[in-house]
């Protein structure tokens, strides 16, 4: 499963990286005469409602998806891990403050909160990144806090304390590394979540703004032509489904690897 997922993700990443450089069509170039044309040998995925090449747009959209996934996951994983580790290791007031913030954010359905945030801040890619990070770090913080509570009692952590190691050193060298496998799994699943959330926000018009191609906006554009030109929604839809599936496979595969009982 890990390999299937990793293959999908690798192919998608290569396509996002290289694809826009090798497609003969500009994703913004309109050929209104050919609008809604179905797939053909020249336009493999067909043309959209403004006569733009859908393949070129799917490839360009992949860049947005990866950009959102990587940014949101890396920022929220690092922030969540640090906050969770601090909460778990030090306990007390710090833990209370961080844990209550986590509870509050978890009480909201994530996507709804993101929609509200973007609605307030205004639709843009930057605000999508911000909103998804705000709801994203919580999961990591909660996971890492739990791991740290356990790791804090490990004898080698006690040994480091007995040697006079400061809290930062103990956390960095001995405690946080025990949480890394869990964080990596969560990050792989988080990539899938971030990509699908960005698509949802863009679909609702709250994310990436036209003419920048994003899979979500493409789905929205194709909505009016579901019956007469289904290829407008089919290809970006497939792209989302495949990439999300790929990241989920990677996440599940890594989890199995990390868990000797299941692996």
């Amino acid at each position, binding site marked *: 499963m890990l390999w299937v997922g990793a293959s999908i993700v690798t192919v998608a990443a290569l396509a996002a990286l290289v694809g826009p450089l090798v497609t003969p069509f500009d994703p913004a170039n309109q050929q209104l005469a050919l609008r809604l044309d179905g797939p053909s040998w020249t336009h493999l995925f067909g043309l959209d409602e403004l006569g733009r090449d859908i393949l070129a747009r799917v490839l360009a959209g992949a860049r947005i998806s990866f950009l959102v996934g990587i940014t949101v996951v890396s920022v929220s994983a690092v922030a969540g891990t640090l906050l969770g580790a601090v909460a778990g290791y030090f306990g007390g007031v710090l833990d209370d403050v961080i844990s209550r913030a986590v509870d509050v954010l978890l009480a909201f359905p994530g996507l709804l909160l993101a929609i509200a945030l973007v609605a307030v801040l205004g639709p843009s890619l930057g605000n999508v990144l911000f909103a998804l990070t705000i709801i994203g770090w919580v999961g990591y913080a909660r996971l890492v806090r739990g791991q740290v509570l356990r790791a804090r009692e490990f004898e080698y952590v006690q040994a480091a304390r007995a*040697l006079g190691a400061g809290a930062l050193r103990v956390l960095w060298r001995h405690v946080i590394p025990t949480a890394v496998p869990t964080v990596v799994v969560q990050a792989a699943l988080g990539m899938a979540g971030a990509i699908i959330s960005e698509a949802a926000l863009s679909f609702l018009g709250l994310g990436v703004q036209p003419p920048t191609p994003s899979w979500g906006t493409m789905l929205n554009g194709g909505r009016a032509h579901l019956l007469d030109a289904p290829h407008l929604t089919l290809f970006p839809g497939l792209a989302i489904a495949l990439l999300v599936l790929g990241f989920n496979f990677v996440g599940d595969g890594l989890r199995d690897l990390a868990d000797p009982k299941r692996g």
Partner: protein
Amino acid sequence: MALVDVSHLVKRFVRGGGLLRRGTTVNAVDDVSFAIDEGETFGLVGESGSGKTTTGRCLLRLIEPTAGSVTFRGEDVLALSRARMRLARRDMQIVFQDPYSSLNPRMRARQIVEEPLVIHGLGAKEARLERVAELFRLVGLDTAHLERYPHEFSGGQRQRIGLARALALNPSFLVLDEPVSALDVSVQAQVVNLLLDLQQQLKLTYLFIAHDLRLVEHISNRVAVMYLGKIVETGPTAALFASPQHPYTRALLSAIPVADPDAHKRRIVLDPASVNRAAPLREIAAGHWAAI
């Protein structure tokens, strides 16, 4: 003057407890006092949960005691500032029971033994490596294995790594928290002999925590028996083993297996009702105290 002086040490844990409910209080260590002289081995025995491990960790402030005092070389350990405590830690170290969980599985043996030197900023890289190799030889490990990970060593070897780490800062006092109870019997003897050799060689003082009474009898100069957080009997090893006074000590000693299968076994089962938990320690013979 004693090297380590523990008086009226109390550690209370509060469990459960919430907004509306008071937690239950457990007196893990309940008014414990003892002193350890320089160069001696002080045995602390008792069953699981008797508070002996908690006592050991309170001495090093790995657990902050609720009350009482611990002095080391006449200095109140519990009152030390963070910086002073760091310095004091060079002189008092601990070896843990479990040779598997006491070593970070992600670090190489060399890094594990080197860590104390790094923490205290002792020596440049080459000097540290020299010291690590020296420590490896001191505890009987092969310096060819410096770059191995803990899982590549046997239990006994791992315990030697833990010992090398504890000795890296040249401490004078070691808390040995059941250092051999997780090892095979054949390996136990080797590690115990190593501990005795090192004590001679480096003039170490040991607090030896164990539940294996034969081992304690073999290694300790004096012994204290803990039961439910209190010391119920303490004295010179020979005197305590020859004439145990407290019912718990008697029950404990009677549980020592005898190597002769034909030997007449007389196992005493402790009746908790026969123990007066409020009884103070009183001196039965010179240096031999019991709470009866």
